[in-house]
């Protein structure tokens, strides 16, 4: 009983997330889930978990945990200083954790989201088949009510002993230091209501990330794009949809987006690139590139293939 990781400090914003909540859009529920799916998958694979099991999404940093259990732990994603019992510990690899160990995350030097996974994942009661925390909906998370982690929470996890420790080779790790991303876009939705001039302007201009960016969407700033129509009948919005409110500034809709909306959309960002966008901080630079649906499908398949444990290096201790 009472085995797990105790939250000493929750940090800026730390949320329990699994692969996401699917099949519930008809009740208006969004998906939630990790913004940077790639870093999230690696954190789980490093702990020998299925890829979509519950782990913690740490935004910017500041999370401090104390363990009451023997387990393995890995942190991936944003370059956040990690220490275990005050000793610096590398990211992108698994570590052995013992009862009494203090796990401290500093603040991101580059990137915005880190993922902390433990062997077997964190245990919480699912809501609509998922523990993904969506604060706006009051659903999911440790207490099933959509609240972020707070001091005193105990994140239950299993006792895991005598497992191997792993490391992700450096060439497979993401590097967020440029604070810029090139996002591939599948054109669609109201695309025909954007003139050739507007389309060219959109794809040839750079945009910057504003501070009004969160898990619902990233608001960008740059060349104004004005479609031929101002509003549309509210319709379903998929992950990565790029919408233009009347001010002409794009918003890329992310995991916690509302399921319906009435602004014109030019298409959607490739899911593979959503994590790159979500790692940017305010002022980060964004460029868009149009790709065909066939290219999108092959990029998706190619991306998915990399998430296998044979990519990991076994650590000899």
């Amino acid at each position: 009983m009472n085995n797990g990781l105790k939250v000493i400090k929750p940090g800026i914003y730390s949320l329990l997330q699994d692969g996401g909540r699917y099949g519930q859009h008809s009740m208006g529920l969004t998906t939630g889930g990790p913004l940077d799916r790639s870093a999230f998958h690696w954190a789980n694979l490093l702990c020998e978990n299925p890829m979509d099991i519950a782990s913690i999404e740490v935004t910017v940093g500041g999370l401090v945990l104390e363990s009451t259990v023997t387990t393995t732990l890995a942190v991936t994603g944003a370059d956040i200083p990690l220490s275990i019992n005050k000793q610096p510990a590398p990211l992108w690899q698994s570590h052995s954790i013992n009862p009494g160990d203090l796990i401290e995350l500093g603040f991101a030097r580059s990137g915005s989201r880190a993922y902390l996974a433990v062997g077997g994942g964190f245990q919480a009661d699912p809501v609509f088949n998922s523990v993904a925390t969506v604060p706006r909906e009051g659903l999911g998370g440790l207490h099933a009510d959509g609240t972020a982690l707070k001091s005193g929470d105990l994140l239950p996890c299993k006792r895991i002993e005598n497992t191997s420790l792993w490391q992700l080779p450096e060439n497979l790790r993401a590097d967020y230091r440029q604070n810029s991303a090139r996002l591939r876009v599948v054109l669609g939705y109201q695309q025909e209501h954007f003139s050739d001039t507007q389309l060219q302007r959109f794809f040839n201009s750079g945009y910057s990330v504003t501070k009004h960016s969160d898990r619902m969407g990233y608001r960008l700033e740059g060349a104004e794009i004005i479609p031929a129509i101002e509003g549309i009948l509210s319709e379903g919005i998929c992950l990565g949809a790029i919408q233009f409110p009347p001010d002409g500034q794009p918003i890329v809709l992310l995991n916690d987006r509302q399921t319906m909306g009435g602004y014109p959309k030019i298409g959607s960002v490739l899911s593979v690139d959503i994590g790159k966008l979500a790692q940017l901080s305010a002022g980060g630079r964004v460029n868009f590139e149009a790709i065909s649906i066939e290219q999108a499908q092959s990029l998706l398949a190619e991306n998915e293939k990399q998430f296998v444990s044979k990519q990991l290096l076994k650590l000899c201790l």
Partner: protein
Amino acid sequence: MSAEKTISIAGENALIVYFADKPSATISTEIATTVKKLKTYLGATLIDLVPSYASLLVIFDPFKTDHQSVRIAINTAIKKINNTPKTSSGSLVTLPVYYSSESGPDLQRVADTAGLTVEEVIAIHQQSEYRVYAIGFAPGFAYLGEVDPRIATPRLATPRQQVPRGAVAIADRQTAVYPAQSPGGWNLIGLCPQLMFDPKSSPSMPVAVGDLVRFEAIDKATFENLGGVL
């Protein structure tokens, strides 16, 4: 007859079907019929569906199927719409409402704007059968239409910070029951004691897109007996 339907790409694993330019009862029924057919045709390759006023977003698993196959399934479903009886596919749900100034702070203003008495507004709101055109904005928030033009009232200039759970509201020709406390700019005319969204029960919502809804006036005692809180 119904206009030409179009299918557009929405994203790498999503297509959106546009049924018409404007919402109507016929279009809503067609969308509900298509939802049912696609669930069968797509089975485990389907991730989610978002039916709305005049469109249907179809999200699929890109590792199990592709755009072309889903497009074929959608076209097949659409072709069969005309063979399906044109009756409403949804059920009729009755929601109790305690209409009063204490439960509906905008009731008097809605009446004044319409040039009607409060009693007339209450009666007119109950006379229509409303269709669930879409569910979104928040979990369980069902957009119901259409409100009788005599009591259609524009949104508040400044939205309220807090609208209580169960608030029955009007915005232009739409009406709704707020499923949870939230900010909101609709005109509040009463309170419904029935939960519109409850993650702990199954089904979690009393209505689905395509259903019909009637409102039925109850008094304060009944409201409180049904669990309503002022």
